[in-house]
């Protein structure tokens, strides 16, 4: 059976034009997908049943046993951490937030080590963004700053920018100028009309220099700024100011480098300066599939996008204090529920060590680095393949994903609702 207009469940692009061929409970072919999509749909490496650590070995257990034991762990904890959420759908994320409130837990999503600083900057100065459709149809200048879309979002350039014709950009390859700013040469920088190579940690200064040029202060610019020549800075500023519609996309090269959220604030303020001359927008390249959705769902319910602490009985948010890496670094949480992510692989080693010390439970379809650190893992259906629900694209557009077949696994929502019911009953 061929299913058309399938939504890809890998990165934040949520490409919705895939054609997937299914035989029984197996995907046998994918059309239109990138390498990442093909691996996601065709990969068949799931954990077969719930597992529990027994001394220095592992044993299979039933779903009921795994869920009841997880509930007991969370009920017994004084400061549980519920982390992850970006690989699952909004309806399951919503139950996660209610579970956190019931437990007085901290709930955090993967933006804490991704675009969390971008959100902090947006909270300070706003977000002059737009949908990807606007970029595709209007943008004649596109800037990728500290991002490598060819490796991280392989179809971004072909669906929305460099290689994609739009309503007002009839021949994208000729009419659209692409500027890549990065600390290293990448496959993306090789297709750019202008590659700006910045010294590591130099983004803030280069952004400031561009702001000064756009403000008409060219005489203030020294011969080089963090490895970038004055002439190139002038050229880039002129390209941006002469655009009819410009779009900046920035990656975690800005959020993770020195300056963190201040880099993003500076980039947003550069966009503001450019809007004195023309129309310019700026958007983060959200990476982990429905991470944008986790920010949306958390915000609807609690008022905060990530790192929400319910220990006081009300929602409290303070990045640097209630963020997962800081909580694990301080050895503060005494139990952790990981849903649809892999902190064992993607958090610093000291955090992984604390996850191994405390009872950690993981709800995830696959064996990953966190599996080895956990006490229990509960496998679930893969959203967008054998589970359906709502996810948000990187530009904030909600898209309903589809179930391609009915498999043998419960989905995240089934497991979390059971967990919630047991805990609510125990808490009275």
């Amino acid at each position, binding site marked *: 059976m061929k299913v058309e207009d399938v939504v890809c469940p*890998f*990165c934040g692009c949520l490409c919705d034009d895939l054609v997937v061929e299914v035989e029984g409970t197996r995907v046998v072919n994918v059309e239109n997908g990138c*390498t*990442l999509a093909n*691996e996601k749909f065709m*990969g068949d*490496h799931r*954990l*077969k049943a719930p*597992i529990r650590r027994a001394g*220095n*070995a*592992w044993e299979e257990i039933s779903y009921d046993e795994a869920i009841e034991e997880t509930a007991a762990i969370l009920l017994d904890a004084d400061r549980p951490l519920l982390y992850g959420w970006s690989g699952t759908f909004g309806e399951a994320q919503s139950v996660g937030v209610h579970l956190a409130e019931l437990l007085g837990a901290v709930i955090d999503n993967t933006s*804490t*080590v991704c675009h969390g*600083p971008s959100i902090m900057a947006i909270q300070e100065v706003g977000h002059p963004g737009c949908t990807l459709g606007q970029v595709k149809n209007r943008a004649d200048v596109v800037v990728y700053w500290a991002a*490598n879309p060819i*490796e*991280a979002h392989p179809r971004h350039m072909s669906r929305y920018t460099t290689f994609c014709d739009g309503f007002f950009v009839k021949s994208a390859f000729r009419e659209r100028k692409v500027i890549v700013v990065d*600390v*290293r*040469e990448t496959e993306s*920088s090789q297709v750019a009309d202008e590659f700006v190579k910045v010294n*590591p*940690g130099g983004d803030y200064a280069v952004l400031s220099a561009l702001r000064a040029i756009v403000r008409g202060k060219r005489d203030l610019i020294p011969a080089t700024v963090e490895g970038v020549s004055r002439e190139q800075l002038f050229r880039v500023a002129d390209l941006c100011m002469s655009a009819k519609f410009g779009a900046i996309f920035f990656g*975690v*090269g800005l*959020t*993770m*480098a*020195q300056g*963190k*959220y201040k880099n993003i604030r500076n980039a947003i303020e550069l966009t503001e300066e450019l809007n004195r001359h023309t129309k310019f927008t700026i958007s983060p390249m959200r*990476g982990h599939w429905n991470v944008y959705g986790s920010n949306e769902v958390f915000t609807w319910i609690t008022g905060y996008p990530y*790192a929400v602490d319910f220990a006081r009985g009300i929602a409290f948010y303070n*990045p*640097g204090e209630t*963020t997962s*890496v*800081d909580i694990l*670094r301080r050895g503060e949480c005494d139990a952790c529920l990981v849903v649809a992510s*892999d902190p*064992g*692989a*993607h958090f*610093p*080693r*000291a*955090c*992984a*060590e604390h*996850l*191994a010390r405390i009872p950690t439970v993981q709800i995830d379809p*696959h*064996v*990953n*680095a966190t599996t*080895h*650190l*956990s006490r229990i893992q509960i496998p679930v259906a893969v959203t967008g393949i054998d589970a359906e629900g709502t996810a948000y694209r990187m530009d904030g557009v909600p898209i309903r994903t589809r179930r391609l077949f009915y498999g043998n696994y419960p989905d995240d929502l089934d497991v979390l609702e059971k967990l919630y019911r047991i805990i609510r009953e125990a808490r009275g």
Partner: protein
Amino acid sequence: MNFLLNTGRTIRQGSSVERKNSATYREEASAVSMNPVDMFEMMVEQGDRVRVKSGSGEVVMWVRPDPGLGRGKVFVCLGPYANHLIGTETHGTGMPDFKSTPVSIEPTEEPVPSVAVLMRQCGGVPYEG
């Protein structure tokens, strides 16, 4: 020799991210990319093993050349090998310094550990199923 460590996504890492016990993931996640001139100065060739140390930990990886990197810079894709070197300081933002960790690198004959072994070093129990 001393270097500045940068981390980030690669398409091979993304392709094998749901098979973290696999040889493909291990090979990609444990590769340290380096400017060829730095490799020449260190007298290492593609595939040679090196011990990478930071203020937060150390791990054995293998070297591959990347002329797109500047001298004194190295790149490792995000994952458990890179994170054996990243510290937990977030400067009040929640975000560790994934893009700029000073490291020292020296040749070694020791083997590159598997992800399961790295997690055992963190206190976990490897699951090989």
